[in-house]
């Protein structure tokens, strides 16, 4: 009996989620469904790259230099081996390097956005709720940073952090430095939106009530205000993810990002550009196409999310 009730409530709950506005508008937006599917597939491919990739591109033991420059879907002239998307100059399978590259691009993108999000939300909450000097200092710093394009700020932070790390650790630390640089260049958006929303929320009755019963400011900020300002944060995070992936690719392409030992999609494009004139188009084309598909899908998903969650943000 109880079991039956439980199942019914579960199906009821599933049904109510299925029919909720949010899911309804998702199901009826083909672009959103398509881009979400693409993003999901790419994330899965990146996470399970070691299982999917036919070769381990970073294990020198499995590499054969004779396989270098094999065109896609054609057997190599010397070894007779064939690769879906061809091989690069060192005989690495392009499909496998893309999978591993996507792993790094997505990891850097996600981590950078998480860093920016946490930093921006915390500072935004503090600025909005406490006001006074805290607010002035935080928002002034935000204004100064907003004067400069984010990519320039990221380059500068990367340069400084590279200067601080000892030379022998630079390649090892590059990925973390990259996350730091992109994350720190991007917190302002979050802080501004959260501060604005906090200013609105803090004068509402439920916050006054919480204050009246003597809850600590920290508890009010985290337990009461934060849940009510999260929607726009989610939207900005999605759009930021697309921007962060492109920023990472740009930095790595310029040679101030992921090192050749841990190539991201940007590094792969940088490597591929060198073979543009000699006719090995596949080394460049496939990583570039992957980057574009990824960035475009995340962007489209973000656009839809913005409209679905908060029409006012348009």
């Amino acid at each position, binding site marked *: 009996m109880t079991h039956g009730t439980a199942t019914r409530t579960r199906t009821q709950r599933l049904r109510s989620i299925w029919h909720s506005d949010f899911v309804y508008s998702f199901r009826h937006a083909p672009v959103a469904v398509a881009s979400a599917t693409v993003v999901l597939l790419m994330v899965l491919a990146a996470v399970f790259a070691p299982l999917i990739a036919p070769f381990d591109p970073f294990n020198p033991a499995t590499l054969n230099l004779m396989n270098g420059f094999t065109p896609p879907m054609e057997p190599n002239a010397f070894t007779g081996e064939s690769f879906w998307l061809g091989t690069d100059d060192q005989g690495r399978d392009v499909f496998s390097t893309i999978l591993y590259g996507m792993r790094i691009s997505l990891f850097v993108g996600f981590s950078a956005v998480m860093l920016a999000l946490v930093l921006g939300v915390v500072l935004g909450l503090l600025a909005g709720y406490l006001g006074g000097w805290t607010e002035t200092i935080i928002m*002034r710093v935000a*204004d*100064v940073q907003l*004067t*400069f*394009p984010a*990519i*320039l700020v990221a*380059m*500068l932070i*990367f*340069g*400084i952090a*590279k*200067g*601080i790390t000892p030379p022998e650790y630079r390649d090892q630390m590059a990925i973390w430095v990259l996350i730091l640089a992109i994350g720190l260049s991007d917190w302002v958006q979050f802080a501004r939106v959260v501060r604005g929303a906090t200013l609105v929320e803090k004068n509402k009755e439920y916050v006054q009530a919480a204050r009246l019963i003597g809850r600590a400011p920290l508890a009010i900020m985290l337990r009461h205000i934060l849940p009510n300002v999260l929607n726009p944060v989610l939207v900005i995070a999605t759009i930021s993810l697309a921007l962060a992936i*492109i920023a990472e*690719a*740009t930095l790595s*392409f*310029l*040679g*101030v990002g992921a090192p050749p030992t841990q190539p991201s999609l940007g590094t792969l*494009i940088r490597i591929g*550009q060198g073979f*543009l*004139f000699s006719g090995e188009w596949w080394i*460049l084309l496939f990583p*570039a196409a992957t*980057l*574009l598909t990824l*960035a*475009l899908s995340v*962007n489209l998903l973000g656009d839809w999310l913005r409209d679905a969650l908060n029409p006012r943000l348009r």
Partner: protein
Amino acid sequence: MLAYVIRRVFQSAIVLLIVGLVAFAMFRFVGDPVDNMLGQERTQADIERLRDRLGLDLPFPVQYWRFLQEAAQGNFGLSYRQGRPVSDILIERAPATLELAAVSGVLALFVGIGLGVFTAIRRRGTAANLIMTVSLIGVSLPTFLIGILLIYLFSVELGWLPSFGRGEVVDLGGWTTGFLTISGLKALILPSITLGLYQMTLIMRLVRTEMLEVLRQDYIRFARARGLRERSVNFRHALKNTLVPVITITGLQLGSIIAFAIITETVFQWPGVGLLFINAIQFVDIPVMAAYLMLISVMFVGINLIVDLLYFAIDPRLRVDRTGGGGK
């Protein structure tokens, strides 16, 4: 009015002081300046003497003040990598970047306004829709991929245009220009399109939106009712009224053109300030990084200030509440 101007100038000065502090901190704390200047064979006495000469034992604010004085005179010391004064290197590289930025800016402005007016007037036409769609793709393509794509089409496949460098340049008393030779002009085409494309789509979309807004206004309908020619209505009456925000945005974008030149210059190996900056990051050449930072912030802050003040002067409607608000 005067209060607003003074406050705006004061704010700009604060921003520059903060940026100066960052640049100074880079000099002082990223690596040891003494380490960077003395070779392997040095004695403790050498180190003491250099520390004394550089004033590294003075209190922090005094050091910062001395740094600002030197920076104001354009002295950023020697490049770690090239061993030459940073200011000399910057002056040598500046013409390449400025010419590239100027051509891209003009290109973006004229083509952007032209396409914007076109897409606004032929709002439902096939060509206008096509332009809008293409512009959407153009915005989502990263700059460096656009550059590579152009190189592939026009240098590799067609072989029409050079893929790197400035071509032949003429030296006009310290200012090298690529405007006077055929190869210099040809070398400018691809980089300036790459750099200007984003701004072009931005201006186009802005002009289109503003035009659609203005075309709905009563005075446009009256102008039509009076029997003015379509051309005259569109350009003499409508376009004129859209230009104030367009000029503001373009002004603000000037700064980012210079910043994004870093990417374009790397793709095309264009010997400008941006490529210098990227190389400086790769080799941790702190003086060049700091000097570039100061240079570009003076430019950004200056442009922002001028645009704000101009906007304020041009559009009287802003004067009422802007004085109380203190900016966004």
